[in-house]
Structure formats: structure tokens, C-alpha cells
């Protein structure tokens, strides 16, 4: 467990001192979302109708943007070999790195999302569903993304490849995330959507670190 804490602290410290990833991801999120009014027109009704989809797709792409560097630096400078040789279980190491990644990229997205929803004229009663959905959904994005990031280590054009690998796997999260917001906007209950997202989060938490650890071992072999 001490390995878990140490790695988490190290990754957080690295992210905070370099600062670039969080800022880049947030900037991408804001810019991508603000492009849509130019694309589909600035009518408030149109924007309100598609706000949930825009926010979720932009969050998905923003999360993807930083994922290919989840293990990349450690792989290149050899830290990964030491981490895998350490007594801590590799699955715990994956969880620690994924948690650090989520805290520095996913959580800021969740916090920023209401502001962007405001720009897109999302109905006020849909805000809880948006925030809760993103809070449950973005960790899943990180966990599934960790598998992809481990798989593409050492590949040519790893970043582009990563999007091809994991975007199809993100579709269920997108469906239920947007579904929750739309259900809330039309005054229906969105509890089912959140429960399903929660179930997916638990499933991903149980399986993804294990698979990512296997993939990491294959990469380091």
C-alpha cells in the first residue's frame, strides 16, 4: 500500500509541477466546446438541445488527449521496469497512476463542465445529471484508457492508434452519460443512467487495472 501512496504522490507532484497536462486538457475542452456554436449556429434552442452531446463528446476527446502519456514517460526512461519489479502489485500501480491521471485531468473537467453548460444554454435542472454523470464517467474513461495506453507503449504513432482502440469502447459511457442529462432536461428520472454508469465504473475498476497490468508486463518484456 505504501507503494500505491508513493506513486500517487509522485505522479500528482509531477503533474502539478509541470502543470501542462491539466491546462492543455482544460483548454482543449473549452475550445472544442466553443467551436460548436460556430458550426451549428448560435440559436439558444439548438444549443440547448445538443448541449449534453457536445459536452460529453468534448470531455471524451479531452480525456483521450492526455491518455497516451499515462505510461509513456515512465516507459521511455525505464522507470516502468523498476515499478514492475517493485514489491507492490502491478494492478495497484495502475490504479495509482489512473487515480493521479483522473485527479489532474478528469476532475478539472467535471468542475469546469457547469460553466460550459452555461455557455451552451443547458436547462438548469439538467446540471446535477451532467455533473454526477461526468463524475462517474470520467474515471471509467481513464481506466479503459489505461488499458489502451499500456497496449500502445512503443508503437509507432501511439497517440492516433490509442484513439482508434479505445473510442469504440467509450460508446456505452457516452450513451448513458448523455442519456442522464437528456432525461433530466425533459424532467424524467436519471437515476437509472447513473446507476448503470456506477455499475460500469465498478466493473472497470475491477477489471481494467488487471488487464492494463498484463499489458504493461507485455510491453516491458
Amino acid at each position, binding site marked *: 500500500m505504501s507503494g500505491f501512496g508513493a506513486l500517487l504522490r509522485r505522479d500528482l507532484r509531477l503533474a502539478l509541477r509541470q502543470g501542462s497536462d491539466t491546462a492543455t486538457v482544460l483548454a482543449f475542452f473549452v475550445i472544442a466546446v466553443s467551436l460548436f456554436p460556430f458550426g451549428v449556429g448560435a440559436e439558444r434552442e439548438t444549443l440547448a438541445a445538443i448541449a449534453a452531446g457536445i459536452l460529453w463528446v468534448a470531455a471524451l476527446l479531452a480525456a483521450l488527449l492526455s491518455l497516451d502519456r499515462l505510461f509513456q514517460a515512465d516507459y521511455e526512461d525505464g522507470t516502468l521496469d523498476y515499478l514492475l519489479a517493485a514489491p507492490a502489485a502491478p494492478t495497484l500501480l495502475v490504479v495509482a497512476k489512473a487515480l493521479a491521471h483522473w485527479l489532474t485531468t478528469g476532475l478539472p473537467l467535471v468542475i469546469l463542465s457547469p460553466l460550459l453548460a452555461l455557455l451552451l444554454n443547458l436547462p438548469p435542472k439538467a446540471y446535477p445529471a451532467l455533473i454526477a454523470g461526468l463524475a462517474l464517467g470520467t474515471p471509467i474513461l481513464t481506466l479503459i484508457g489505461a*488499458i489502451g495506453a499500456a*497496449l*500502445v507503449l*512503443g*508503437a*509507432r*504513432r*501511439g497517440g492516433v*492508434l490509442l484513439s*482508434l*482502440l479505445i*473510442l*469504440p*469502447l467509450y*460508446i*456505452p459511457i457516452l*450513451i*448513458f452519460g448523455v*442519456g442522464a442529462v437528456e432525461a433530466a432536461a425533459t424532467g424524467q428520472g436519471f437515476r437509472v443512467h447513473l446507476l448503470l454508469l456506477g455499475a*460500469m465504473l465498478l466493473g472497470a475498476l475491477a*477489471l481494467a487495472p488487471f*488487464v492494463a497490468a*498484463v*499489458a504493461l508486463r*507485455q*510491453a516491458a*518484456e
Partner: protein
Amino acid sequence: MSARLHALANPARFGRFARRVLPWTAWLAALCIGAGLVWGVFIAPPGAPPPEGQGETVRIIYVHVPSAWMSLFVYACVAAASAGALIWRHPLGHIVARAASPVGACFALLTLATGSLWGAKMWGAWWVWDARLTSVLILFFLYLGHIALTHAFDDPARGARAAAILALVGVVNLPIIKFSVDWWNTLHQPASIIRRDGPAIDAQMLAPLFLMIFGFTFYFFTVLLLRARAELAALRTRALKLRMLAA
């Protein structure tokens, strides 16, 4: 069974096995597909005339349904081969997965193309975000990811291992994706486009349909054996080249 599978790990033995089996699968594929096409296109009755039924358009199913079946079957084969490669380190597993995946992608693409042609005639649109079409599209993306990952590394062995893990991740995710697409579809799609109580399939159509399904399956095994043999030869060439470079 497992002893026999392990015997095939020897490339020379696999080559002999492929040589013995290939003529059978190839001829059976040609016979089944030939007979199925003639029966399906010329002999089987057309559907009811257009406003109510599907008319001649119904004949697309003789290619569409077997392709759809194959696109799933091939993914199952890729996953099984990947599991064999990862769990038992069976050397043939990676080769089979690598050889089968592009074939599966082609079947998925054929499913999409024929489905789209059918949709253009029956729904008046080339593409509809119908649950089944969407699921096949996602399956096609999964195939593309698998193929891309296989070929993304300078070391083919590393690509094979990574792709094997991806194939297994895909198997776990496919039911979740299918379920969520169905859910999404029932929420978004007007129900009028697809009639759920479509006419039950005529026995006259079932026979050519099954012929085509068997034909496609034999065709897949023929191509798989050919491609696996080519992969083995390529591996051997690579090893020889590396040895020449080292000498």
C-alpha cells in the same frame, strides 16, 4: 483435442495439415456459395410486392445475413485464438488471430454495405442509426483497431501480444456495447422504421440461406488457412533474413 492442437504448433505439421484440409474447404465453399446464390437469386420466391413486402430486395439477405454471422463468428475466432496464445502460449494463436482479423473486417464491411443497399431500397435512406447497423459499425471499428495495433510495432511479436489483449478486452466489451446501443436506439429511434413483427422467414428462403452461411464459413476457413500459411512463411523469411544480417 488439446494434444492435437499442440501438435499443430509445429509449423511443418501445420503446413501438412493445411495442405490436406485446404482442397476440402475450398471446394465445399465454392459448391455451397455457388448453389446458394443460384437458388437464392433465381429459384427462391421473391418477397411480397413492394408497398407491403420487400419484393426482389429480399434477395440481399443471402449475402447480408451470412456476412453478419461471419463478422461475429470471426471475432469469436480471433478472441479464442488470442486466448490460446495468451494462456497456453500457443504459437499458432497469434498467427491465426493476425490472419483472421482482416477477413472479419471485410465481412463486417460487407454487412454494412449490403445493409445500406437494402436500407436505401426499403427505408429510403442509405444509412439509418438502427441498433443492428450501429453495432456492426462498432464491431468494424474494433476490427480496425485490432489490425492497426497488430501492425503498429517494429517487433511483430509485441504487436501480436498487444492485439491479443485488445481482442479479449473487446469480447468483454461487445455485449456491453450491444446492450447500450439497443437501449440508446429504443430511446432515440422512431419505431416506425423497422417493423418488429416482420414476416417469418419462408422455408423456401431458409435452405439457400443456410447454404450461403455454410459456404461463407468454409470460405473463411479456406482463406484463414491460406493466410496463416503465408504468415508462417513471412515469419520464416524474417527469421532467415535476420540470421543472414547477423552472420
